[in-house]
């Protein structure tokens, strides 16, 4: 995907890929890091850095009537008031957010 973006922009050099990774995405940061390096070998991304921003899980709390962090992913309730909720607002992301390029 990042490679396509580089080509779209006239074969610029990508120095870093910024990725947003939700804690509920099902993807493990360390595993992603090691596979990233392997996947980049012999491509335009070789030598680029992968910068991962971890996104915490947030739910909509019906009691607080607003978006709140979840107590933990083992205990799916509002961190403020303890009301259980299944409405996930944030935390499922697996998204290439930005690229650092040199033209």
């Amino acid at each position, binding site marked *: 995907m990042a490679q396509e973006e580089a080509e779209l922009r006239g074969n610029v050099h990508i120095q870093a890929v910024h990725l947003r990774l939700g804690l509920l995405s*099902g993807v493990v940061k360390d595993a992603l890091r090691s596979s990233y390096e392997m996947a980049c070998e012999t491509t335009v991304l070789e030598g680029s850095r992968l910068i991962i921003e971890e996104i915490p899980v947030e739910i909509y709390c019906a009691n607080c009537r607003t978006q709140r962090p979840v107590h933990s992913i083992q205990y799916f309730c509002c961190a403020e008031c303890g009301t259980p909720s299944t409405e996930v607002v944030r935390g499922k992301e697996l998204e290439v957010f930005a690229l650092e390029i040199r033209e």
Partner: protein
Amino acid sequence: MSPEPRMVEVRKNVLKQNDVTARALREHFRAKGILAVSLVSSPGSGKTTFLEKTLTLLRPQYRVAALVGDLATENDAQRLARSGAPVKQITTGTLCHLEANMIQKALDGWNVDKLDFLFVENVGNLVCPSSYDLGEDLRLVLLSVTEGEDKPLKYPTIFNTADVAVITKMDLAAAVDFNEHALDQNIEAVRPRMRILKLSAKTGEGMHEFLDCLQKLQRSRPQAASAV
């Protein structure tokens, strides 16, 4: 080359292609009145036995078919075919989960439009399948009584993406000192208000409650998943 690097915003979902394919599948299933049900669990928790029983019990009344994913062998497809329902094996090679395009490919040239139910048995794995939408309307996560009551706490993400928890091998509950209350609490903690069904495909205990639930969903299509 300019010396200063520059940031460009991209904002692209890595699994976008899978999500696009899954959405197309879901729309197709809904348009044809098919209830697509997927099954996820660890290896050995009884997906195939449970599905074989389900297909056998539904078949006299409904048009059913199944897709089954495995790394290798066609053993599961052969077992499921004993039910008399059409079954197709998806062999993933080294891949530990199914993806939406594999479902699409498996359905290619297979006329499923007249079906009432399409079942998709995922590869035995509680990690990676949670990231891939398969276009199903109902996702069942299976857990056998021999696996330990704390499994939902160890794999919260898969429970979070599933609609119903099916506890299998209830006929072995006493032998393994299965703590029903502890499991219920753990499921409630990772996914509040999740529906839990306890059954044994071997003895048939609890199977009718499950079939009732499926039939209700089938009738109330297309708002299937939300009706659980």
